[in-house]
C-alpha cells in the first residue's frame, strides 16, 4: 500500500495549511498542548504502573488507582493524538521520510492495543486474583512502551 499520497494530501488540508503558515499557532496549539497532554498521559501511566509495581501508594487499593488513572489516560490520549495530527499534517511529507516518525507510530499502535485489549480487561476485576509477576510485567511493559512513544517523538525533531 502506497501511503505517500496520503501524506501529500495531509499538507494541503486546512489543518496542514494553518500549521505550515502560522508558526505561532503550530508552536503553541500544536507543540505546547502536545507536551501538556504528555504530562497528563505520563502521570496517568506512572501513577497506575508504579502502583502496580508496588513502588508508590501501597496503602491505596490498586483497583481504585488504575481505574482513576485510566480515566485521565483516555482524556490525555485524545488530546495528544489530536495535537499530534495537527503537528504532523503541517510537515507530513517530512514525516513520511522520517524513521523516528514510523518508530513512534508503531510504538503508539502497540501501546494503544496493549492498553485497551490486554491491560484494561486484565485489570478489570480484583487484582488479588492475578499472578503478581504478570501484573508487574504488564506494568513494566506499559511504562516502557509509553516512554518509547515519547522519546521517539522527541527524536523526530532531531533527525532531518
Amino acid at each position: 500500500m502506497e501511503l505517500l499520497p496520503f501524506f501529500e494530501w495531509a499538507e494541503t488540508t486546512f489543518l496542514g495549511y494553518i500549521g505550515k503558515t502560522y508558526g505561532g499557532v503550530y508552536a503553541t496549539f500544536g507543540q505546547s498542548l502536545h507536551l501538556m497532554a504528555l504530562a497528563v498521559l505520563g502521570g496517568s501511566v506512572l501513577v497506575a504502573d508504579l502502583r502496580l509495581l508496588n513502588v508508590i501508594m501501597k496503602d491505596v487499593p490498586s483497583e481504585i488507582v488504575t481505574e482513576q488513572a485510566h480515566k485521565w489516560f483516555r482524556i490525555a490520549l485524545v488530546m495528544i493524538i489530536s495535537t499530534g495530527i495537527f503537528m504532523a499534517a503541517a510537515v507530513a511529507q517530512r514525516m513520511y521520510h522520517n524513521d523516528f516518525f514510523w518508530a513512534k507510530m508503531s510504538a503508539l499502535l502497540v501501546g494503544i492495543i496493549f492498553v485497551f485489549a490486554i491491560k484494561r480487561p486484565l485489570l478489570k476485576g480484583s487484582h488479588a486474583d492475578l499472578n503478581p509477576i504478570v501484573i508487574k510485567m504488564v506494568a513494566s511493559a506499559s511504562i516502557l512502551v509509553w516512554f518509547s512513544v515519547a522519546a521517539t517523538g522527541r527524536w523526530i525533531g532531531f533527525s532531518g
Partner: protein
Amino acid sequence: MTVKKELGIQEKIAAVAAGAIIISALMYWGYQFVGMLEFLEMAYE
C-alpha cells in the same frame, strides 16, 4: 499471600504481550545506543 499455580488464559496472553513489548523496547533502544557509539567513534577518528 497465596500465589495461584495455574495462569488463566487472559494472564497468559498478557504475560506474552508484555514480555514481547519489554524485549522489543530494550532491543530497539539498545540498537539506537549502539548506533550512537559507532557514530561517536567515527567522529573521533
